[in-house]
C-alpha cells in the first residue's frame, strides 16, 4: 500500500487514502522530528519576533540576551533555512510550521 502522505519540498503531500489521523501524526513527526535544519525553540522565538518587525535590540531586550546573541541566532536561522535575507527566512519558516501567526 502506498503511504498516505509523504514529506515533500516545502511541506507534506497528502494522497488519496490520507486520513486525518495520518495527517496529524505526520505533521507531529515532521515538526518535532529529526529533520535536518530544524530550528531550536529559541530560534523560533527569535524568528517570530523578526517577523513582527522587532529590531535586533528589541529582540535582545525581550529575550534578555545580548544583541550579539540575537545576531548569532539570526545567522544560524538564515543558514538552516538557506535564506539570503530575514524576509526570506520568514517565508521559509512559515511554510515549515516554524512561525507563530
Amino acid at each position, binding site marked *: 500500500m502506498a503511504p498516505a502522505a509523504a514529506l515533500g519540498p516545502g511541506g507534506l*503531500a497528502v494522497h488519496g487514502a490520507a486520513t486525518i489521523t495520518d495527517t496529524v501524526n505526520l505533521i507531529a513527526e515532521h*515538526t518535532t522530528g529529526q529533520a535536518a535544519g530544524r530550528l531550536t525553540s529559541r530560534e523560533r522565538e527569535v524568528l517570530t519576533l523578526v*517577523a*513582527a*518587525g522587532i529590531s535586533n535590540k528589541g529582540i535582545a531586550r525581550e529575550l534578555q540576551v545580548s544583541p550579539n546573541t540575537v545576531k548569532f541566532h539570526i545567522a544560524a536561522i538564515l543558514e538552516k533555512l538557506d535564506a539570503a535575507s530575514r524576509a526570506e527566512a520568514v517565508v521559509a519558516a*512559515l511554510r515549515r510550521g516554524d512561525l507563530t501567526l
Partner: protein
Amino acid sequence: MNSPSVLQQWSRDRLDLATALSPRTVAIALGKHRSLSGMHWRADLVVTAAEALEGSDEVLVISDRGEIRAPVIACDLATDVAVLRTDAGQSSEQAITDDAALQAGAGVVIVGRTRRGPLVGFGTVRAAGPAWRSRRGGAIAQRLEFDAALDGRFEGALVADLAGVPRAMLVPGTRGSLLGIPAATIERIVAQVRQHGYLPRPYLGVRLQALWLDHATRARWGRTSRSMAAVAGVEPGSPAEACGIAPGDLLEGINGATVDGVEAFAAQIAQSTPGSVLSLRMRRGGQSHTVEVKIAEWRQPQR
C-alpha cells in the same frame, strides 16, 4: 535671444522635477559606507525599505538640512515599508493619497539621496498590474515594475510621475527587478502608525504547515488549489486555543472565501486588525466546521 532648443527644454524640465522632489528625500546610513534612500512622508515620519534596515532600531538620517538619529518605529517585512520618526522636514500633514493607478509605459522620476547629495534617475513603468500579495504575505495595492538603470543606493527612493506627484517607493524585487510599493500601501501602514504610535500586529497563535493535495483529494474535498494550510501547533492561551483550533485541523477558508495555502492564510491574518472577529472554516475528521475567532493584538515588546 534664441529660444531654448527642445533638448534644452527637456533637460530643464527634468532638472525642475528633480529639484522640486529632492528636498523630500533622505539618505539612511547603514554602517560606514552603505546607504539607502528614504522620503519624508508626512508630518515627522520618514518612510524607507524595511528589509534593508536589517533589524536596526535607530538609524542616521541625512537630509539637505543635516543629520538626525531617528528611531525605527515600524518595520513591516511583509510590505517592505519601514517608518522612522524624524523632525517635520519638508512634508505636510496632508496624506499622500493616490487613487489613479500608474500605467505601463508612463515615465517616472526616481529620487533618492546619498550622504553627499541627491540621486536622480529617470525610467518607465515596465509593468503595472492589479493588487497583489507579496511572497511575504503583504497586501500591495498595485503591482508596479520599473525599467531604469539604478543601483542599491536607490532602495527606498521616491518614485514620482512626471507631474511630480509621489506614487511609490522603489524596492528591489527578485532577479534584479525594480518594484514599486504604491503610495496607497505606504499610507495604510503610516496611518496605523500615526493612530497608535506603532504598528499593531494581529495575533492568532497558530503555527501552520503547508500540505500538498493530490488530484483525488482535491476532487473529494472540492478544492482547486494544490496547497492547503494545516495547523501544526497552537499556543497556550492564544485566541486559536480559545476557539478550539487544534493541531491537524486543515484550514479551508476565512469569512466565507476559500483560502489556498499557508501564505494566503498568513496574508489574511496579517491584514486583519486586532479585535476583529474572523470566521474560519476548518476540516477535521472528514467534516467541515466553522469557528469564530477574535484576533488579539500581538504583545508589543518594550522598545
